[in-house]
């Protein structure tokens, strides 16, 4: 139909608000904002990312750090009945550190739909450790990696005495439990199930991006 042949009301409508188009654009944006907003509210995304429930998987090609410490810590985890319980995790803390690429996938649900919040950063060059991760802390349940620790390594150090100067001291562990302390660490091909991650400078990560993907996705 040509414009010349259109009725006056149809011509008027073509200059009005196209609600279908607006809705098409608005809903994903609103969804993204809601998810990011809730993440910010939950743990201030710029500082940390915490998952009270659900699963966060982490993948990175490598981590090089000075001051590396591991201790056992209790982490509050939401249960299906709306309550919470303390669940033991390994708390990893590092001093000055660099990461080679980063991907976090948080599988959750929005309005009853399964969605995955993907947080990614870094470049595609496997030889560069382009992300600063000084004073990184992680609460993890399961980590697979090629693990190397250098300098003085202390195994079964009292958890309460394990300390990282950049974190202001102790990792706040479970009393009198396992601790590991090393002068340096070099981890490669890291895959982890994470409860909490705190990178003080997360938003300054190069190529930082957040996407919301439908369904359950992994990095």
């Amino acid at each position, binding site marked *: 139909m040509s414009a010349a042949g259109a009725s006056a009301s149809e011509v008027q409508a073509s200059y009005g608000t196209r609600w279908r188009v607006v809705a098409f654009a608005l809903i994903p944006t609103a969804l993204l904002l809601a998810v990011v907003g809730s993440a910010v509210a939950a743990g201030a995304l710029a500082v940390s990312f915490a998952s009270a429930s659900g699963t966060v998987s982490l993948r990175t090609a490598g981590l090089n750090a000075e001051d590396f410490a591991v201790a056992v810590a209790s982490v509050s985890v939401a249960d299906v009945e709306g309550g919470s319980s303390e669940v033991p995790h390994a708390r990893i803390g590092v001093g000055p550190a660099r990461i080679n690429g980063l991907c976090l996938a948080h599988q959750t649900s929005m309005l009853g739909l399964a969605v995955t919040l993907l947080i990614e950063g870094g470049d595609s060059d496997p030889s560069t450790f382009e992300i600063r991760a000084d004073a990184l802390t992680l609460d993890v349940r399961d980590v697979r990696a090629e693990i*190397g620790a250098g300098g003085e390594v202390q195994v079964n150090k009292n958890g309460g005495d394990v300390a990282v100067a950049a974190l202001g001291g102790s990792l706040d562990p*479970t009393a009198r*439990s396992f601790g590991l302390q090393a002068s340096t660490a070099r981890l490669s091909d890291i895959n982890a199930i994470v409860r909490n991650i705190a990178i003080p400078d997360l938003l300054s990560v190069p190529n930082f991006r957040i996407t919301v993907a439908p369904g359950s996705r992994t990095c």
Partner: protein
Amino acid sequence: MRACRALLCALAAAALVATAVGPSRLAGAVTGAPTATPAGFLPAPIPVTVTAPTLRIRDLVAVLVDQPIALAGGGRSPGGPPSAGGTVLLGFARIDLDRARIAQSRAGEFTLAITNAAAADRAAVIGGVGGEVELWGVVNTLDICLPASTLRDLVLRNLGDAAARRIVAGLLADGADSKAPPCTAAKPLLPALAALIRQGGKLPALVRARDLDIEVYALRANAGSGALSLSLPAGRLLVTPR
């Protein structure tokens, strides 16, 4: 002249103090001198259980029995001979552990396990060539694999301790060289090894062993010169509630 003599005396005294303080903490352990934290840190009160079906120890330079150490919370690791579950201090340069598992369990709380599901050139490695590893632990099981002829040579050449000599001789008498098992339970042999090394005897640079199960109260490793002190090529850290 008198001033020079005084200076020389002062320098000699300083040198004596420096040499007494400088060497490894092993020196204190050998002489029985008490050290508050011989590992350089206060260990957790619960040991980690380290297991490996096969392993290789390089440059085993110290075996000291009855070496309890202080633990967090005010306790101490067990004393007494290895046969009675006493703490042993092992000093070596490097250990390669095939399919290693390092785990700590707290009843009703958690099990933390660090594993390396690989062997040979992808085995877990603690320490390094020229490095220093010190381990305080209670040996549950460990079979060391030394040729009987090597053991006999070591006994004849180096072992002056009559009691230890009897233990080793007894082990050797269990079978002729050709029939002797390649691996021998190390637990009853540890006092003999301790005496052997104390007498200046040396084991082969590489000692093969198997069936390691040891409760480790403290382990410190330093491979030195920028090398990795702990390497887990196929590493996994897993925490599970109990």
